[in-house]
């Protein structure tokens, strides 16, 4: 049976390009047929690379045939992650001239502590204010800050966290922004297990987006993730929370959990309309 290879890579297709070649003992990322990668998928690729490398598994990246996508990956600073984790690259990742796109891109970045997380949340604010609805900028600031804080405080991720964001269709009615924060830590299930007992990955995600659920027994805790979900959903956006072998997708009208390939850690992403209600 032929393997499905997506041409557009976003939250729901991430698994289709990731595999483990057990004969060679190599983790493979196959982007050959891909003609689009969003910020969530890019963050997911970084987490996959860091996770494999952390487990001593070499990573091989097959670059896209599409030159525009190769340039985009380069512009989003994927090379920093490839170099840091010694990824073997099949194909050439071009060097691109970095014209100013600070109002539309947050390149893939790694952070290790709350100062790094604070800085990235401020980046989001500074880069988007004025060009995007104020409520959306505020929500993105809060989301980035809270998700970054979760990585630093709860994830136990040996390489810290990754973040990337991009604004799409600037100026068009369907203009939107995607932001994602990921880590290769213990995952939500393990994080909550000590306080709430054993549960599945899907159950742990459902529980983590309820108010006042936290690994830390403190009455003011457990506001970060539910606040992100409520805020993004309230503005007509979508949130993806992927941890372990489950991914929960939440929109204003519905929420559903799907089984996914097990990835170490957690990736949370949000897609928001830049001008909700218009």
């Amino acid at each position, binding site marked *: 049976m032929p393997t499905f290879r997506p041409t557009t890579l976003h939250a729901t297709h991430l698994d289709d390009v990731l595999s483990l070649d057990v004969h060679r003992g190599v983790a493979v990322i196959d982007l050959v047929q891909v003609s689009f990668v969003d910020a969530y998928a890019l963050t997911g690729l970084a987490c996959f690379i860091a996770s494999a490398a952390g487990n001593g598994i070499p990573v091989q990246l097959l670059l896209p045939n599409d030159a525009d996508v190769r340039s985009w990956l380069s512009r989003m600073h994927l090379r920093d992650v490839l170099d840091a984790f010694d990824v073997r690259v099949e194909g050439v990742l071009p060097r691109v001239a970095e014209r100013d796109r600070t109002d539309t891109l947050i390149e893939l970045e790694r952070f290790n502590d709350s100062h790094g997380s604070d800085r990235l949340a*401020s980046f989001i604010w500074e880069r988007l204010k004025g060009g995007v609805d104020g409520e959306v900028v505020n929500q993105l600031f809060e989301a980035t*800050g809270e998700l970054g804080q979760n990585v630093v405080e709860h994830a136990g991720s040996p390489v810290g966290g990754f973040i990337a964001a991009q604004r799409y269709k600037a100026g068009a009615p369907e203009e939107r922004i995607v932001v994602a924060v990921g880590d290769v830590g213990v995952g939500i299930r393990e994080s909550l297990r000590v306080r709430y007992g054993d549960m599945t990955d899907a159950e742990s995600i459902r529980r983590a987006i309820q108010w006042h659920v936290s690994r830390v027994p403190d009455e*003011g805790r457990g506001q970060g993730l539910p606040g992100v979900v409520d805020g993004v959903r309230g503005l007509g956006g979508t949130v993806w929370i992927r941890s372990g072998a489950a991914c929960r997708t939440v929109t204003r009208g519905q929420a559903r959990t799907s089984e996914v390939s097990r990835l170490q850690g957690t990736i949370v992403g949000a897609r928001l309309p830049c001008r909700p209600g218009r």
Partner: protein
Amino acid sequence: MSTLIAPKLVSSRDQARELTAGLTDDLSDAVVMVDCSALQASTPSFVDELVKAVLVERGAERLIIKGAPERTVELARRAAQNRGVAARLEIG
């Protein structure tokens, strides 16, 4: 009265701890004012940690949040409510 100046953007709990680090441990007869006139955005975690540090851990008589954006005020009220100290929070 002790006055703290909130910066333009605040997000982590560490930032709240840094902002309040200079306060004495016992504030039971004291009022703390946080001047938020420069503040543009805050996260729920920052605001919760601020309320915790001033009203819960140090037991201040009052915490005044002055000149804050509407969203920060909403977060401060929610944090104080969650921690059972709403009667000692004042919005200026």
